């Protein structure tokens, strides 16, 4: 019984330790798993016919790369008038994190 508790405690402490490794910007976060979509911005432009996305990733908090800018997302779909911008944050056990930006416009 004691061994099991010890194992669970060690596993949780390892997960907690790892979760501080690859972190991602998000309004809500989970230690084991995060997958949250949330708003970034909205403009006064009235319509959307195009969607563009951009992303950046982090592995173990050691390597982080990518271009998750609004500009990159808008450019990828040829958007010149932005309607609104959303973001999606994902992370798994602190090993891997991904941050995506979605731009809607025309």
């Amino acid at each position, binding site marked *: 019984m004691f061994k099991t508790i010890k194992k669970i405690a060690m*596993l949780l402490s390892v997960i907690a330790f790892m979760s501080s490794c690859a972190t991602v910007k998000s309004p809500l976060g989970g230690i084991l798993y995060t997958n949250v979509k949330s708003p970034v911005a909205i403009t006064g432009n009235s319509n959307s016919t*195009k969607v563009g*996305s951009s992303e950046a990733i982090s592995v173990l908090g050691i390597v982080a790369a990518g271009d998750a800018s609004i500009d990159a997302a808008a450019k*990828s779909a*040829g958007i010149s008038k932005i309607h609104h911008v959303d973001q999606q944050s994902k992370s798994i056990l602190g090993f891997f994190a991904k941050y995506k930006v979605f731009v*809607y416009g025309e």
Partner: protein
Amino acid sequence: MVWLARHLFFIAMLLLTSKINGQNIEKYYTSSLQEKGTLYFIFPQSGFENNKTKSKLIYDITYLATTDTVTLNFSYFDKLERTIDSAVFVNTNQRFSGSIKKLFIETNKSKWHYRYTSKILFTDINSFFNQTNNPTIILYTQQGIVELNIKTKNWKRQSSVTKKILTLIKYNQ
């Protein structure tokens, strides 16, 4: 330490299994209600590659439900400088092309990043993803023809996910 490795391996396998069998299409697309109808965006998909030069193509699909055409944006990465004239999608019983328009050309490390957009009929794209055989994307450039193929395993996953999303779109029309 062995038990920790076993636990982590088990969690990794669990996540992998759910990814393969669950076919949770929600993570492959997003939808937004607009004035002119629902706007669907199928996230970028990769896997098309030239066997010799290893040049790659990544595409994403945008569809406004009230129209009859989808917008297929693609990024093509190649070491050579090219001028792309057209893109043709070839499957067992089907061959179609859409007019393409350049969005931008950039350099990405040692490769050129060509970003283009094309308009394709919804019915064409729907039947393209409904076929089980591996398709080919052919790029006609002024420097020659580039054939891009996809591996069977990758196509099976990609076509089944996209097919399901397109079915969902049809149900909501």
